């Protein structure tokens, strides 16, 4: 008798993703949905979706959702979590959302040690608005607002927000992963699992930065985009546990 060993997780609604073929958002959504079930927190989870490509996350994740203005996810999550400390509150944010317009909200939430979890999707580009430079765009990388590629002298260099957040005393667990290969996808799932567990244990601010391909704006095939993450993005944003004050959480 054949047994199903992989199927659609129950916290993923039956709708078809609007994301482009090969978009990392879809994979990350699925991992979150799987964990909501595995950790049995779906019924008490409240997600704060971002502005950007993932703005429609509420069409996919079957949990309570409160949309934040662009960049303000950490502040909205603060209000939610402080009011309902027993619920699981997490934001889902892109690089422009979290590392440009919402830098202040994020840093201060981390510094206060807000007991929330942040899923930070870094694809190096403003996807939804058509591929403008993001704070995380690599040097030399093309975007619609960096003719000839990102020039540090003119455009600044890629911002490593996760490192900055690690300096804040209140942050507990910060890891950078990627979803460009089966191995990295598994690792991402483990990282998000730990981040949720840190919150469940009431330890404080947790964040997982996920390097994610945007084949459309990178103008690559999904397979090439996955390779590009490996060969270029991880050179500037290496995959690693950036901070772990939690140790083993059960």
């Amino acid at each position, binding site marked *: 008798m054949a047994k199903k060993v992989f199927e659609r997780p129950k916290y993923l609604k039956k709708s078809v993703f609007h994301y482009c*073929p090969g978009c990392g958002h879809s994979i990350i959504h699925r991992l979150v949905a799987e964990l909501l079930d595995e950790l049995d927190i779906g019924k008490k989870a409240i997600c704060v979706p971002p502005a950007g490509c993932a703005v429609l996350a509420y069409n996919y994740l079957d949990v309570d959702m409160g949309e934040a203005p662009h960049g303000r996810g950490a502040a909205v999550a603060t209000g939610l979590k402080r009011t309902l400390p027993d619920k699981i509150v997490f934001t889902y944010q892109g690089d422009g959302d979290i590392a440009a317009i919402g830098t202040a909200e994020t840093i201060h939430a981390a510094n206060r040690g807000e007991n929330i979890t942040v899923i930070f999707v870094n694809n190096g580009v403003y996807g939804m608005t058509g591929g403008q430079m993001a704070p995380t765009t690599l040097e030399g990388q093309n975007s619609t607002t960096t003719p000839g590629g990102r020039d540090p002298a003119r455009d600044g260099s890629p911002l490593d927000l996760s490192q900055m957040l690690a300096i804040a005393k209140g942050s507990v667990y910060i890891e950078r992963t990627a979803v460009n290969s089966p191995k990295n996808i598994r690792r991402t799932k483990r990282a998000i699992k730990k981040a949720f567990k840190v919150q469940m244990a009431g330890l404080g601010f947790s964040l997982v930065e996920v390097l994610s391909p945007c084949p459309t704006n990178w103008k690559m095939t999904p397979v090439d985009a*996955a390779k590009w993450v490996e060969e270029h993005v991880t050179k500037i944003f290496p995959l690693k546990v950036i901070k772990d004050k939690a140790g083993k959480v059960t």
Partner: protein
Amino acid sequence: MTKKRKKGRIVIDRELCKGCYLCVSVCPDQLIGVSDSLNQKGYYPAEFKGNNTGEEERGCTGCATCAITCPDVAIEVYRE
């Protein structure tokens, strides 16, 4: 070489598939190919070639590597 235990099987939902072919690129035994007919969204979906590869050492183990890589959750995996 020992004979591989072909205990797995996958089902790809043609209509959910967006033709990114990440699954094609990750299957250790290259068991996934591309359909030659379009789906309703206008993509050539990926297709499980089955275990009858004619080569004994190739066959689906039900490892689910393809499924965890599929962005569109189009693949279900079964194991004996």
